[in-house]
């Protein structure tokens, strides 16, 4: 089984890797690149803990092959903070208590930061629909929605 040389731009930096065909993107990120902010939850494409932004779209990185991401731009939770300043969604989750255990949070942050790129002023319904693929077992989502609304306000 041949290995593939791939190159991705992750959080602005070009990284190269030699990967097996079957390597999943989440393992490339966590194990090859040692960025462990992206979590593995269900590993069956339900929970969204592994969400990363791939060429502008939030996707479940447990269900993408690393080799499929060759040439792509990837943003992980490590890439949200810019110059020591938290991204507005990160600030929102802090201010509005958008987490308890924190396991789903990286995925939530990636999905909601991508939402705000596309929709500057999402309604509560639109926020809830956007995070439908990200499961949180602690908060009941109420404070997550508030956190995103906080971030949206901040970004306007």
């Amino acid at each position: 089984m041949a290995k593939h040389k791939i190159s991705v731009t992750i959080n602005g930096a070009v990284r190269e890797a030699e990967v097996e065909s079957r390597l999943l993107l989440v393992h490339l990120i966590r194990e090859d690149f040692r960025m462990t902010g992206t979590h593995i939850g269900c590993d069956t494409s339900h929970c969204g803990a592994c969400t990363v932004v791939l060429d502008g779209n939030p996707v479940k990185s447990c269900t993408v092959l690393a080799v499929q991401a060759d040439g792509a731009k990837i943003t992980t939770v490590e890439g949200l903070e810019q110059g020591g300043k938290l991204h507005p969604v990160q600030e929102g989750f802090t201010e509005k208590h958008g987490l308890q255990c924190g396991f789903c949070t990286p995925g939530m942050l990636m999905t909601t930061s991508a939402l705000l790129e596309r929709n500057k002023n999402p309604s509560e319904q639109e926020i809830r629909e956007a995070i439908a693929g990200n499961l949180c077992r602690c908060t009941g989502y109420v404070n997550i929605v508030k956190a995103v609304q906080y971030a949206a306000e901040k970004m306007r």
Partner: protein
Amino acid sequence: MIPAAFDYHRPGTLDEALKLLTSHGDQAKVLSGGMSLLPMLKLRLASFAHLVDIGRVPGLDFIKEEGGSLRIGAMTRQSTLERSDLIRTKYPILADAVPLIADPLVRNRGTVGGNVANGDPGNDQPAIMIALGATFVAKGPKGERSVPANQFYKGLYETALARNEILTEVRIPVPPARSGGAYAKLKRKTGDFAVAAAAVQLTLDAKGAVERAGIALTNAGLTPLNAADAAKHLVGKMPDEKTIVEAAKMAAAKSTPSADVRGSVEYKKEMARVLTTRALRKAVQRAGGK
């Protein structure tokens, strides 16, 4: 979970992809969005020695009306369909359905071609394409051919596609005036497959009677169910409540769901009836009928 080892191929053209499929035969599988295939490989429910990724084959990602058809390229992502103004304004049956497929993150990867070509009776778009009277275009080593959606599904994960053919596009006849469609789906939660779901596409004549009807059900047996008898029952009649109720009963009677965590056979058949009724009412209303 890690899939069993395989070789990954990324052809740059459709012809190259077809050559790979031909040379690897049963050992090769087309990878589109991967939202069904990759979980199956990870769970080791399937394994293939070769995956042929058509994700970067040019010319497979489009939504356009042309020559009396709505043409959707096989690599069109569900999220692209969801955001299409053309779909939102002219194809309500698809606009109903797409937001109910999986979840938004999965829809960012999942494709229309994958949804219809996979042959999973739990997928939503096969029934919709049958109701719409769509045709699937497949390309193989000998050229292109068209297969009507209602002749495409042969069994569980079995379709009319040969091993060395690729489904390249879906063609849907542009609905004439006084047409309406709807998709009604019952699911337990986001990301789940349907307990039952019904796709309906109708065209009324000038007097308001049904001129053409397509009705198909999701997860109602081993293949999407083409409820042709129920559709035929409607044709020539005014789509009043009595006729709708009769047609829905006929459609549900043909369904052969299996009992699982989503419910018993009786429950699923009853839900098929209820959802067909709802989809029919909505389709009639959208077609401008009463």
